[in-house]
């Protein structure tokens, strides 16, 4: 049996909504609605093709329906785009950079806890940190765009803080746990509210809350209840290194998962041409 107008419409809807994880459910639900209405019209004596055309008119153009699925309750677009796809690639890079910065820190990048400290390793470490923070900021922007929050006040603030932190990382690398703590808190604020959990890639970003916790642990064990030996600057390397390693490794996992999630999503087609409706056969 050849596809009729409703089949063609539903196929077009499915193709244009393929970025949604529940695309099959949406298509089945639309098909049920359209068949129900067309059947009722046919039962009233209307010709099948006329019934289907009238049904599709009432349901709305594919582009109109796709756009309704592509925006948040307050009308902001929240779909996979080329930006979110690029942010996925950045996320994978950020994950690798965080993991590398953890390895270099443990190998004497900032402390001489495990092996003797050296200026060359410190400089390498701060460059890795700057790369990690820059790519993390791009990934954050992608997640905010994907969830319709990039242009909100909290979204702009999070990205601005990320840019600021990137610039501050090289001269202030030793303070990265505190600085990233502020960024992590900003991301959590920006991603609060409904609509985030349905975007699988966005869920991982909540792991960045580990940074404010790490900053608190650093203050606690470096200032309030010092642990380990005291170095020549009066700091406690163990209190510094432990939270940094935990936070950077958590970030490596979170960013890699977020990145692969954003990359896996098909870019939404909101402006494609309408389906060519074929006449009912027979």
């Amino acid at each position: 049996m050849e596809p009729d107008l409703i089949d063609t419409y539903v196929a077009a809807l499915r193709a244009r909504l393929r970025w949604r994880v529940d695309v099959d459910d949406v298509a089945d639900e639309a098909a049920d609605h359209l068949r129900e209405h067309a059947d009722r019209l046919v039962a009233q004596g209307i010709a099948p093709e006329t019934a289907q055309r009238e049904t599709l008119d009432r349901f709305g153009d594919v582009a109109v329906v796709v756009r309704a699925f592509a925006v948040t309750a307050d009308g902001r677009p929240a779909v996979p785009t080329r930006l979110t796809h690029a942010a996925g690639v950045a996320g994978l890079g950020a994950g690798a950079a965080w993991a590398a910065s953890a390895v270099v820190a443990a190998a004497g990048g900032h402390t001489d806890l495990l092996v003797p400290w050296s200026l060359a390793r410190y400089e390498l470490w701060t460059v890795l940190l700057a790369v990690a923070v820059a790519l993390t900021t791009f990934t954050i922007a992608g997640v905010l765009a994907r969830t319709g929050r990039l242009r909100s006040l909290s979204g702009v603030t999070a990205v601005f803080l990320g840019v600021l932190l990137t610039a501050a990382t090289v001269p202030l690398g030793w303070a990265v746990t505190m600085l990233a703590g502020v960024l992590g808190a900003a991301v959590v604020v920006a991603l609060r509210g409904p609509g985030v959990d349905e975007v699988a890639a966005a869920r991982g970003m909540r792991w960045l809350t580990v940074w404010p916790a790490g900053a608190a642990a650093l203050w606690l064990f470096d200032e309030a209840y010092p642990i380990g030996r005291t170095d020549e600057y009066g700091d406690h390397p163990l209190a510094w290194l432990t939270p940094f390693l935990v936070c950077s490794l958590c970030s490596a996992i979170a960013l890699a998962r977020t990145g692969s999630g954003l990359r896996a999503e098909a870019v939404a087609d909101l402006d494609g041409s309408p389906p060519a409706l074929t006449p009912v056969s027979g």
Partner: protein
Amino acid sequence: MRGESLKGHLDLLVLAVLADGPLHGYAIIEALRERSGQAFDLPEGTVYPVLHRLERAGRLASDWDASTGRRRRTYRLTGPGRGVLEVERAAWNEFVTAVGRVVQGPAWNPI
């Protein structure tokens, strides 16, 4: 009434329609059209994103059934959804009463 006017109140309208019992998407839209005196003129397909959003927010729940030969999704109000409906309904009644008093002018008093 223009569809755009209804659009801002769709959440409340959908919750109100489902207060009487579970319905599938087509029946919800038919009820919206019927109970609004045919004033509901939004493209019907744009109601489904609203249903899905309300479900994600925990105000609706849904079940699939294939006994008719087609997969059909039926929505129902959840406890939190019913609570939201009561609050929104009270706020709406208060709003309509207040606006009505202003728009209709003061009551005529012959004394």
